[in-house]
Every structure is written in structure tokens, then in C-alpha cells.
């Protein structure tokens, strides 16, 4: 195999998760209007205030335009042709399964195939899973064990039923209903997602994770996740995502809100491996998400770590509003694009409180004919005395036909603030590959080693169990990609 072929095959590594699960769906009309939104709410048995929340968001969305500033090109989704709610038919008309016996065996098998068995005894020690299939949370594991510690971990739909006061207080408080076009759409039609509440003085005893799976070809996924850490509490949460391979694009527009009160710490990690389309750029997920954390209390900390390898189009900017004094925001990102993928991703760090600190480490890897942009904003408000930011944006190019761009924006309104920004671009060279081959590594291993070395600072931030996974994923993603 020539070097170019090998590099190509590496980036074009076959997508292992592209299978479909054969399940029966409840009928639901496509398109969006007030009646559809009321119907979603009805099917989910939601209280009136949630229906109102949705309708207000819908009113705002109708007035909004799809943004055109991201550095990506795509055909605008046909919003009338999307199915906004997708639920599988349940045995005995039950809503949420009480035990795994109530879950459709086909779906259980799906998660098994994805490497996420839902039987507690088969799972990795110390990790609780919420499994979301299209629009619904299928099952949440280790709930009892978490409840003993006072931690609530369930789907957002359940939280609306069982803990309405918490949801009412916090939902939309970090990402308002009309925040942006896709956040407004999500607020109108959100399906399911995870809810986490960690009470005061509690360190969550397990890693929490959600596994998102889009199966239905026509449905969009509009998940909504809300994590709240009370004073002096801590949680580490991880999400993973995959989807089947379809010729058509599917829309995934999520909203994630994190709230950290005094001395609280939230660590949120993502391994995103949605289907990214074929070599010609057909199919793949449109991943348009709004993720934002709010360091509301003093000395709080929110840390985003993301490994973005999938999706045809990605735009997402996990951000932190640093309101509490001495609060800390972190963003560690590896974004890999290959073939025709396009990613425009980065972060916003909004410094409001005194002596707030933020760190941004972004590693972009582009191969094939893909386009990878970093876009970041560091904003220092007038009262953020002593605020500090440190940013590093590194890009790595594999081959000659890909693109890498950085758009760092800095707005400082406080002269005592310190903002540092570094950037670099490098290319995986023939000489580097030859060097490692001369030491006995084959081409794919050589590339994988170079890429993992490049992304190491970020991969190290992932919870241990997932770091290995991410490492492998980068290798597979880039198999045969050098040109």
C-alpha cells in the first residue's frame, strides 16, 4: 500500500456503528407547527408549564433565521420534512420500562453491539448509563445505588414528572429559549436527554454517562441535558454518540446546560462519533448543538472535554460563563475531520467574576477534503479584575486537500486581565511516517501514533476508561489517510 493509500484508508476507516435496528415506531406526523408541539407534550404527559415553555420557544424560533456565520457549507434542513418525535412501540402500552425485561430485545442487542451492555453486571465498574434511543431514554442503570448518595440521575422526561421544581428552576436558565436558532428549535421540540442533580457536599460516587443513538432515518434528535451541582459537590459526566449510515442527512440539535454552585465542580466529556457521511459527502449527521455551563457560585469549576470525530457538519461551542469569583472554566478539544466533513467548533469563555480563570486547549486534525475551523471567544467584562485566560489552538493537516482555520476573538474590557493566545499549524509529513516505519511500525500505526501524540494533552483529560476508547477511535478514524 502506498503512503497516500494508507493515510486515506486510515481517515476513511470504516464506520463500525452504521447498522440499523429494526423496531416498530409509533406513528407521528412530520413537520412542525403548534399542534405538533402540543402533541409531543401530550404524548409525554407533560405538565402545562412545559407545554408553555415549548410554545414560547416555538414562537421565538419562527421569527429567527438560521445562522450563516459558521465556516461550513450545507443544504439547509427541510424543517417540514423532519419527524420531531420518534418513539418505539412499547409492550403493554407501558411508558418507561421498569426493568430490562420491559425493553425491546432488539434495542438491548443494539446497545450490546455498540459495546454498551445495559445489564448492570456487564458494565464497566463505576459507570452508570442512561441510554437514549432516538427521542427517548430507554433505560438508566444504577439508579438505586446513586439514590443512596442522594444523586438523581434519570431522563429529563422523568425529571419533569418526578422533580418538576428542579427542572422548572434551572431549565432554560443557562441557555434561554430564544438563545439561538437551533437552541430555540430544541426548546420547542426537545425529546429526551439526561438529568443530573448532585446535592450539597456530595461527590457523585460513579461516573455518569449517556449514550445517544439515532436510529430512525427521518427523525431528528433534540436532546436536552441538564446537570446541577449544588454547593461543594462534584460530578463527572460523559456522553457518547453514534448513528446508522443513511444517504440522507439527519439533524441533531441538542441543548446542554450545566450549573455549578459554590465550590462545585462539573466535568463534562464527549466522545462524538455520529456517522459522518460517505466519501462523496452524502449522508451523515448535522450536529448543531448549544452547550453552556454556568459557574454560578464562587470557586466553582466547569470543564468541557470533547473528542469530536463524527458528523457531516458540526458546529458547537461548549462555553462557560464565569460568574462566581475565582471560578474556573476549561475547554479541551480534539476535533478530527476527514473526507468531506466540516467542523466549526470552539468555545466561549465569558469572564464576569473577579480572578476567574479559563484554559482553552484545542487540537484540530484535518484529513481528506475536510475543513476544520476553531472559533473561540474570550470575553472579559469590566468587573472581572485579575481574570486570566490561556489559549492554545493547534492544527494538524494530513494530506494536501484539507483545510484548517482558526478564528480567535478576544474582547477585554478590564485592563488588569491577562489573556494569552498561542497557535500553530503542522503537517504530518512523509518523513515523520518514514521515521516511525523505519523503527518497525506500519503506516497506520505510525499515523495513529503521531496523531495521538498531537492530541495527548486533551486525551489525558478524559476519564481513564474512555481515554483508551478515544485513542482507538482516532486511529480508526484516520486509518489510511495520508496523501
Amino acid at each position, binding site marked *: 500500500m*502506498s*503512503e497516500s493509500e494508507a493515510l486515506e484508508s486510515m481517515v476513511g476507516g470504516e464506520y463500525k456503528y452504521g447498522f440499523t435496528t429494526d423496531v416498530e415506531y409509533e406513528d407521528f406526523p412530520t413537520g412542525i407547527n403548534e399542534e405538533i408541539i402540543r402533541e409531543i407534550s401530550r404524548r409525554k404527559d407533560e405538565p402545562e408549564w412545559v407545554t408553555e415553555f415549548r410554545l414560547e420557544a416555538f414562537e421565538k424560533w419562527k421569527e429567527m433565521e438560521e445562522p450563516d456565520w459558521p465556516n461550513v457549507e450545507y443544504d439547509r434542513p427541510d424543517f417540514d420534512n423532519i419527524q420531531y418525535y420518534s418513539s418505539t412501540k412499547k409492550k403493554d402500552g407501558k411508558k418507561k420500562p421498569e426493568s430490562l425485561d420491559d425493553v425491546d430485545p432488539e434495542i438491548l442487542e443494539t446497545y450490546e453491539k455498540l459495546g454498551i451492555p445495559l445489564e448492570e453486571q456487564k458494565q464497566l465498574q463505576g459507570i452508570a448509563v442512561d441510554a437514549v434511543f432516538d427521542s427517548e431514554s430507554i433505560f438508566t442503570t444504577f439508579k438505586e445505588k446513586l439514590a443512596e448518595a442522594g444523586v438523581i440521575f434519570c431522563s429529563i422526561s422523568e425529571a419533569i414528572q418526578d422533580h418538576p421544581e428542579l427542572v422548572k428552576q434551572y431549565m432554560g436558565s443557562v441557555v434561554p429559549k430564544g438563545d439561538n436558532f437551533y437552541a430555540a428549535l430544541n426548546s420547542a421540540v426537545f425529546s429526551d436527554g439526561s438529568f443530573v442533580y448532585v446535592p450539597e457536599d456530595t461527590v457523585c460516587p460513579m461516573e455518569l454517562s449517556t449514550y445517544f443513538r439515532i436510529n430512525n432515518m427521518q427523525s431528528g434528535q433534540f436532546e436536552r441535558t441538564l446537570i446541577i451541582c449544588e454547593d461543594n459537590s462534584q460530578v463527572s459526566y460523559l456522553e457518547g454518540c453514534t448513528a446508522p449510515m443513511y444517504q440522507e442527512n439527519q439533524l441533531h440539535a441538542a441543548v446542554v446546560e450545566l450549573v455549578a454552585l459554590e465550590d462545585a465542580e462539573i466535568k463534562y466529556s464527549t466522545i462524538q462519533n455520529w456517522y459522518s457521511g460517505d466519501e462523496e459527502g452524502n449522508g451523515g449527521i448535522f450536529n448543531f448543538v448549544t452547550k453552556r455551563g454556568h459557574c454560578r457560585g464562587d470557586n466553582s469549576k466547569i470543564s468541557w472535554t470533547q473528542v469530536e470525530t463524527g458528523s457531516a457538519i458540526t458546529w458547537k461551542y461548549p462555553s462557560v460563563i464565569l460568574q462566581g469569583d475565582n471560578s474556573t472554566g476549561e475547554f479541551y478539544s480534539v476535533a478530527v475531520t476527514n473526507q468531506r466533513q466540516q467542523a466549526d467548533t470552539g468555545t466561549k469563555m465569558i469572564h464576569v467574576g473577579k480572578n476567574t480563570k479559563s484554559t482553552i486547549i484545542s487540537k484540530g486534525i484535518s484529513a481528506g477534503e475536510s475543513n476544520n475551523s476553531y472559533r473561540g471567544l474570550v470575553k472579559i467584562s469590566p468587573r472581572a479584575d485579575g481574570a486570566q485566560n490561556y489559549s492554545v489552538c493547534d492544527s494538524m493537516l494530513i494530506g494536501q486537500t484539507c483545510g484548517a482555520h482558526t478564528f480567535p476573538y478576544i474582547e477585554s474590557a478590564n485592563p488588569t486581565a491577562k489573556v494569552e493566545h498561542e497557535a500553530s499549524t503542522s503537517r504530518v*509529513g*512523509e*518523513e*515523520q511516517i*518514514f*521515521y*516511525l*516505519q*523505519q*523503527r*518497525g*511500525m*506500519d*503506516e497506520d*500505526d505510525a499515523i495513529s*501514533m*503521531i496523531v*495521538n*501524540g*498531537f*492530541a*495527548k*494533552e486533551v486525551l489525558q483529560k478524559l476519564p481513564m476508561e474512555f481515554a483508551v476508547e478515544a485513542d482507538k477511535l482516532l486511529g480508526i478514524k484516520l486509518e489510511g489517510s495520508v496523501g
Partner: protein
Amino acid sequence: MLEIKDLHVCVEEDGTEILKGVNLTINKGEIHAIMGPNGSGKSTLSKAVAGHEAYEVTQGDILFEGESILELEPEERAHLGVFLAFQYPVEVPGVTNKTLLRQAYNTIAREQGREELDPLQFEDYAKDKLDLIDMKEEFLDRSINAGFSGGEKKRNEIFQMAVLNPKLSFLDETDSGLDIDALKTVANGINQIADEDKAVCLVTHYQRILDYVTPDHVHVMIDGKIAKSGDKDLAVKLEEQGYDWLTDVASVSVNGEQ
């Protein structure tokens, strides 16, 4: 061990011929030195032996232990026991020497049917080799060549050679850029590694290193060919007189052929 026969090599990209009929035989237990002016093709020869894909063999053959290796990928040649110490060692940020070498060692061991080493065993093994060339332990945990000084990079190549224990080593100007003490240490390292079962080919511009590592054969490469071979006295003569006297010989013989 290595037999290079009438080797012609072109640059893949534009077809320029760089090696124009090289003949060279290296037996086990031997130390060879190749000298020659800048741009004469010494590095090209080393890389062609190691299998760099930018260089296309248009004529001739390279035999390793009796078998042609022309069709083999670079890593397959490495698995057989061919090692190249690079003239310009490459940096790989974020990947430690230890990670690379353990993976390399185990891959080669697996291919050769030898036992692999676990991380702890490897650490001990590697530390012994560090001592051999007087390198500090911290080099194991540093990224491959990243931020190394010129001399440290060269030394690191010899360290890698010591760890991988190849049968045939091409050392491309490993002596350039080394201070006097480092030169002695590196030469000492080479002497310890080279035994009767191994072969070493030093590419160098200076006869200095040959005071410490005594070559059995010295070759002069001019314009893509071995223009002259001899013993270590040839290196001394080259040091004194330069290459002019040989260039004339070479051009005369070319004219003679026409």
C-alpha cells in the same frame, strides 16, 4: 549480509537519477565507511536501503541475507534487522521515546519470533542501553527528538539502535554536530553494539570518528557511484587532499566510456 548490485535510483517525483550504478557488499562483522562530497548520494543510498518511497529503484537490486528486499515496505525491512540512523532525526511531539521504542521493540521481536517485553521489563532493558551511551534517564520520557539539541538527537539515534539491536545499521552522519566527548561516547557505543554477527555502515564527512571506530573498508561516493574503495588509509588521504583528485578520475572514466 548486504549486497547492493548496480543500483540505480531516481527521485519518484521528477525522475532525476541520483544513484547511477552503486555496487557494495557488506559482510557480517564488518564496519564500512562511506565518504563523499555533499549531494553525491550517500543519504539517498541509506534511504533506498531502508525503503523510503520517494526513491524509486529503476535498475539493480538490494539483497539482504541473500534475498531481494526491494518489494518490502520500510517496516518489513526494519523487522528483518535493518536500521537507519537519520542524518536529520525527525521530531514527533507528544510521543515519548519510551512509547515508540517499546512498541518498536515488541513489533520487531514478534516478527522475529522473540519474546516481547512488558513495560517494567522494557524499562530495565532500556535503562541499560541508556548507560551505554551515557544518556540521562529523563530522555526515555521526553517526546521523540522534540526540543533535543542537535547532538542529543544524534545520540538518541544511537540509543534507539542499541535498543532495537539491528543486524545492519546505516549511520548517516551520526558524528556531525557531536562535541569531542560525545563523539567518543557514541563511538564507544557503536563499538559495543557491533559484534561479529552485525554490520555497520558509517556515512561521514570526517575521518575523526574513524579514529575511534576502525572501518574495515572505506568507500568514496561521487556523483551517485562508488568512485573508489580502500582501507582506512583512504579516509586519511581524503581528509588531507579532498575529493578533487577523485572527481577527475571519475570524469575521465566517464569520458573514456563515451
